[in-house]
């Protein structure tokens, strides 16, 4: 029997490798390259244009002594935690309600989902208006005679971030609900039957059986929400512009302002780097669990 030569490994699946070039380039050049570039220049005192004048950690020192940045971080934290909880809880409850074989399911689903089709600019604008104390809810309620009524989240520095949250929840829960609904539909019918035979009340079945079974859905959802949280910018700009004062600043806005408004790229890059770092801190354990775990299993 003749022997066959082993073909060059590099040229196996050549088409697949060829097709993956855009992805590889994007990953390497844009995401990795851009990240590294950002990190490197965060150690410089670049102003309007990047320049290689390294100043060590000065930008970071300044970053962490800036109350605007600290408020941004705090806001992001509040916003992130609340949005995560609200959109998951509301999204799940809505999905669970829609999953009860109800009538008009399509109508309700469309109602919950349509805000997702609108841009943040639009969302911000509409909610800014509804929450406007003069014209909006506060004004209307007062015109009914309840003159001491006060609901002005966008104009009250203490709660402005929650005002932004109202719009964010409005915009994002639709998608979450869809994801959850899809997840619920993927649950084995027999589990429900088993739980009914066991006489387990509906809410307990959801809480103790169904939700733990939807782990993959929750992970996907979490990735989607979390990526949106870190990037939140437009909504804040459209609703409050960071105000009142700096009460609703968020890191993405800080970075943007630093780079383009105060023309201090180095400072902006330092902020970016901190944001990327926090993303990594969240993502690496997840990636480890997802990918590392599978190989062993």
């Amino acid at each position, binding site marked *: 029997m003749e022997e066959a030569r082993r073909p060059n490994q590099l040229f196996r699946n050549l088409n697949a490798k060829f097709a993956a070039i855009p992805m590889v380039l994007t990953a390497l050049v844009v995401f990795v390259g851009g990240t590294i570039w950002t990190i490197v220049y965060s150690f410089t005192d670049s102003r309007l244009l990047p320049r290689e004048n390294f100043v060590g950690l000065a930008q970071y020192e300044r970053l962490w002594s800036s109350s605007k940045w600290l408020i941004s971080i705090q806001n992001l934290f509040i916003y992130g935690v609340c949005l995560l909880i609200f959109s998951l809880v509301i999204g799940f409850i809505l999905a669970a309600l829609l999953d009860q074989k109800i009538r008009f399911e399509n109508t309700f689903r469309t109602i919950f989902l349509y805000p997702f089709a609108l841009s943040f600019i639009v969302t911000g604008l509409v909610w800014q208006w509804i929450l406007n104390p003069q014209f909006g809810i506060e004004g209307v309620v007062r015109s009914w005679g309840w003159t001491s009524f006060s609901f002005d989240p966008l104009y009250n520095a203490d709660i402005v971030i929650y005002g932004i949250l109202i719009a964010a929840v409005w915009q994002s829960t639709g998608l979450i609900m869809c994801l959850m609904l899809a997840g619920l539909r993927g649950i*084995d019918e*027999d589990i429900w*039957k*088993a739980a009914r*035979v*066991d*006489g*387990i009340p509906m809410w307990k079945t959801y809480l103790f*059986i169904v939700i*733990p079974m939807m782990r993959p859905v929750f992970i996907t959802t979490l990735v989607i929400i979390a990526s949106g949280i870190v990037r939140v910018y437009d909504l804040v700009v459209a609703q409050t512009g960071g105000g009142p004062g700096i009460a609703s600043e968020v890191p993405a806005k800080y970075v943007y302002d630093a780079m383009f408004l105060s023309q201090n790229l180095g400072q902006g890059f330092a902020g970016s780097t901190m944001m990327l770092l926090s993303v990594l801190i969240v993502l690496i354990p997840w990636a480890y669990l997802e990918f590392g775990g599978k190989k062993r299993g």
Partner: protein
Amino acid sequence: MPSVVVRDVSLNFGSVEVLKSLNLEVGRGEFLVLLGPSGCGKSTLLNCIAGLLDVSQGQIFINERNVTWDEPKDRGIGMVFQSYALYPQMTVEGNLSFGLKNARLPKDEIATRIARAAEILQIEPLLKRKPLALSGGQRQRVAIGRALVRDVDVFLFDEPLSNLDAKLRSELRVEIKRLHQKLENTMIYVTHDQIEAMTLADRIAVMRGGIIQQLDTPQAIYSRPVNRFVAGFIGSPGMNFIEGEVVGGAAPAFDAGGIKVPLDRYEFGDGGARGGKAVFGVRPEHVALGDAAAAMPCQYDVEVEIVEPMGSDTLVWGKFAGQNLSFRVETERAVSVGDRVRIGFDPGRASLFDADGGERI
């Protein structure tokens, strides 16, 4: 004193009528198997009994109580599913106890019941594990355990063994049989595997298209199927069907392309020996070969086309009146493709069906 009564139950999914005015009585302590091809409504019927589906018409009684409108948990039933339907994030113990805790049973009562079920099913070492860490057979045992701890009179099984491989299936089959002998409660068991049906059942209900075709003991169904569908469904390897004509009269006979089979030993049904197109069915294991064939009332020569050794015995395929005919021989007997062999069978053990409706003649 029947344990489960299904009276005139119909069920529609929209415009599709899945169960058609179905009646069924299951005696106390009886093991009833619902057998039928996929989509015939077996699971639907079981779900109706369990209360997981609302019937469109009719009533259901369990232990002489009308439970038609009762919740599943109040019907005194336990159910085991094909896909096990274990709660994946709870340990085996959690799976067993979850329903009991919800019923607010005292702690020690729960513990006793779990201990008993675990002992019966021999899953004590698994109690602390999660379902994912169990093999298929173990999972199904836990699923049975979950029904067991409920301490109910009626057990419902929906194809509990279909997801297991052949070997495990036959092992667990025996275990279920033992369990039934020990517990002596009523069991209704859905399957589409006729071996399971035959070995487990006290009585079998063969279903097709939402209608029970025949409800009888395994032996009766095996030897006197009421129609061609039941005959073909029961028995493995399946019954041979030879198409031809019944020639009525004083000495009725079956004529298949010129070959005549005398039917004087055949017990005709109520209709008697009408003439007309018919199908003659004979089981492979009732066709004898060689010496045994000589003892049979009818004998013919056939040429061997395929030989299928199955270990314990061998299935041989030949042509009879131009139609496929299989018969079973012991493995020891050497039969090879191309041989001409003499076969014989007893029409008294065969079945005759109407060619059109498929009813037994």
